[in-house]
């Protein structure tokens, strides 16, 4: 119970309430309390101001783009930074001539976020598909097996330290080690095996329109593509998903496990019961991983190839919201381009806040009481 101290000191019977020293003491009490309250409340208010500033600044600076494109921004896949001039064509597809000169039309710059939303969603989902089963398996091992082998401590320290490695380090590893390896070994091997499988041609070929005709050409395997980005993301979120799901599983009451074992369940069946018991917390761990993957910037910028187009192939370069911001924001001219980038930033912010709120609700509700 935190009682207000000034109330106590005021209520306390003082032998010389009218005397000098006691009164000045009490005044200094009140002054100190007031100052502490002011400083603490002020600092806490700054936290609220920070969130307010974040939303407000992004909203106002993105306003030109929001006004221009509205919500259509989210489903448009055009991203033309500069004005484009091209010959005007009539309804029949013929170039319009006037006085022997080709009439040109100007296409205004246009911006749409669909390619980066696709890139973010796709890379995060692939990363989760790889990382989540591995993390759950490892978390079960850490909770059920590692303590008996006395390796839970070192393993946990390792995983927590690896969670602290900055994304720049993963990016450099991805750029200089993983990407060349994918380019020289994995990519060609997959291509050789799957190229002639019917229905998988889209993975290795893309259709482009060159001079009016549609040409199908092979996608060059560069190693810096959606596959590499997703793999690096998967490795990056492994530590966090593992350690959170370990905490969630640790919080499963011992009686639950013992109960299933007493009913004759095998080791694995009792594990399934554990997973079921902690399912909302585990879902929270997945959401935390998703939030991390979606907001990840440096590593993904270095390995995903940075091509602002939707291509379903895992061997095509792509772009995420964060990598688009990292690549273009510094060079963006003020105006619609910058406003559109800020619109993307706003979408990214709202999305990751949403994931975080859901994750925290789920994890804190389940794991915290036993976790501490």
């Amino acid at each position, binding site marked *: 119970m*935190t009682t207000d101290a000034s109330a106590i000191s005021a209520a306390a019977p003082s032998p010389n309430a009218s005397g000098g020293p006691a009164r000045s003491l009490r005044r200094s009490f009140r002054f100190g309390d007031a100052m502490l309250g002011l400083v603490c409340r002020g600092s806490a208010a*700054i936290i609220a101001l920070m*969130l307010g500033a974040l939303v407000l600044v992004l909203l106002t600076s993105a306003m030109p783009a929001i006004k221009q494109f509205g919500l259509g921004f989210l489903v448009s896949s055009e991203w033309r930074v500069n004005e484009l001039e091209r010959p005007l064509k009539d309804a029949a597809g013929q170039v319009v001539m006037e006085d022997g000169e080709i009439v040109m039309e100007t296409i205004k710059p246009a911006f749409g976020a669909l390619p980066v939303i696709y890139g973010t969603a796709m890379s995060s989902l692939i990363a989760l598909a790889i990382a989540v089963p591995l993390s759950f398996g490892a978390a079960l091992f850490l909770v059920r097996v590692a303590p008996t082998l006395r390796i839970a401590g070192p393993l946990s320290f390792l995983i927590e330290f690896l969670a602290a490695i*900055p994304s720049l380090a993963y990016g450099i590893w991805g750029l200089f080690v993983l990407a060349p390896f994918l380019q020289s070994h994995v990519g060609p091997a997959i291509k050789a095996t799957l190229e002639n499988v019917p229905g998988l041609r889209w993975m290795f070929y893309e259709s482009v329109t060159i001079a009016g005709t549609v040409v199908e050409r092979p996608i060059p395997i560069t190693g810096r593509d959606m596959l590499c980005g997703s793999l690096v993301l998967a490795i990056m979120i492994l530590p966090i998903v593992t350690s959170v799901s370990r905490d969630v599983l640790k919080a499963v009451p011992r009686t639950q496990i013992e109960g299933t074992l007493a009913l004759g369940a095998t080791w694995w069946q009792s594990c399934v019961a554990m997973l079921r018991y902690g399912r909302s917390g585990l879902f929270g761990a997945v959401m935390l991983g998703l939030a991390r993957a979606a907001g990840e910037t440096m590593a993904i910028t270095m390995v995903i190839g940075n091509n602002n187009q939707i291509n379903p192939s895992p061997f095509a370069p792509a772009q995420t919201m964060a990598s688009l911001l990292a690549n273009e924001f510094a060079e963006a001219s003020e105006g619609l381009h910058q406003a559109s980038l800020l619109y993307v930033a706003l979408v990214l912010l709202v999305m990751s806040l949403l994931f975080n709120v859901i994750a925290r609700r789920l994890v804190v509700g389940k794991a915290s009481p036993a976790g501490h």
Partner: protein
Amino acid sequence: MASARFETRRLTSDAMFGVCAACAAVIVTLLLLVSGYLVFIGAGAINLSFFTDVPTGDVAQPGGMRHAIEGTLILLALAAAIGVPLGVASGVYLSEYSHEWLFASPMRFIADVLTGVPSIVVGILGYELVVVPVSRWTSNSVSFSGYAGAAALAFIMIPIVARTTEEMLRLVPKTYREGSLALGASKAQTVLRVVLPSAFGSISTGIMLAIARVAGETAPLLFTALGSRLLTRDPSEPFPSLTLQIYTYATGPYPEQKNLAWAGILVLLAILFVVNLLIRVVASRHAATRMGKS
């Protein structure tokens, strides 16, 4: 029949046990592979001039990263100077004034939410909130500055420090507060002389963790500090940072600079490892003394 079913169950269980062990093994190998590679190549690229020299401008002999190391230290000091007092004070509020729940619990929620803001968005906020207004004020074209970078880092630090401070203060037994108040101490005296000192060790651990977290950040600095190849100590100028310099070198075309990037990553990892180890040691010693006391 029944024994056959039991046999299947047992086999499935054994198989899944193997799968779980394999998952743990795969994760540990993968992560060791990554960090081992970073350490191995970095160790081959590092030498004394990395710490003592500044960039030369000659791509074949790019010099060292002294400017970037100093820059990062200055940025961290500035960020901590802003972030630590604000973070600790809000943490004190969240813990010691939690009876004001109408204000305290939304603040706690907001602090939680803020820890999940993508760092690139923080960088953009720093640009819009510090760089652009300062440019208008001084009528410079664009005034990227160390101050803007430090502000962005502080933005990331404050919610982390606030939440860890709160958690640590909540571990201080209530009897300490009650005893202090019963002896006639004011609330301010109780908080400043009893509660905060008894959680000092764990709070400083939380602060170290927050500093370690922002030490590896690159994205918030891209549009705020911008990076620099000069040995500057004036934070009102574009400011060098280890992470920015590593990023520039790693994505650039020159092999000698890429070498430097590897060395830089090694230095960064070494710093983070030492900090993490220190935190663990301090935390366990603190836990031991706490156990002894109670």
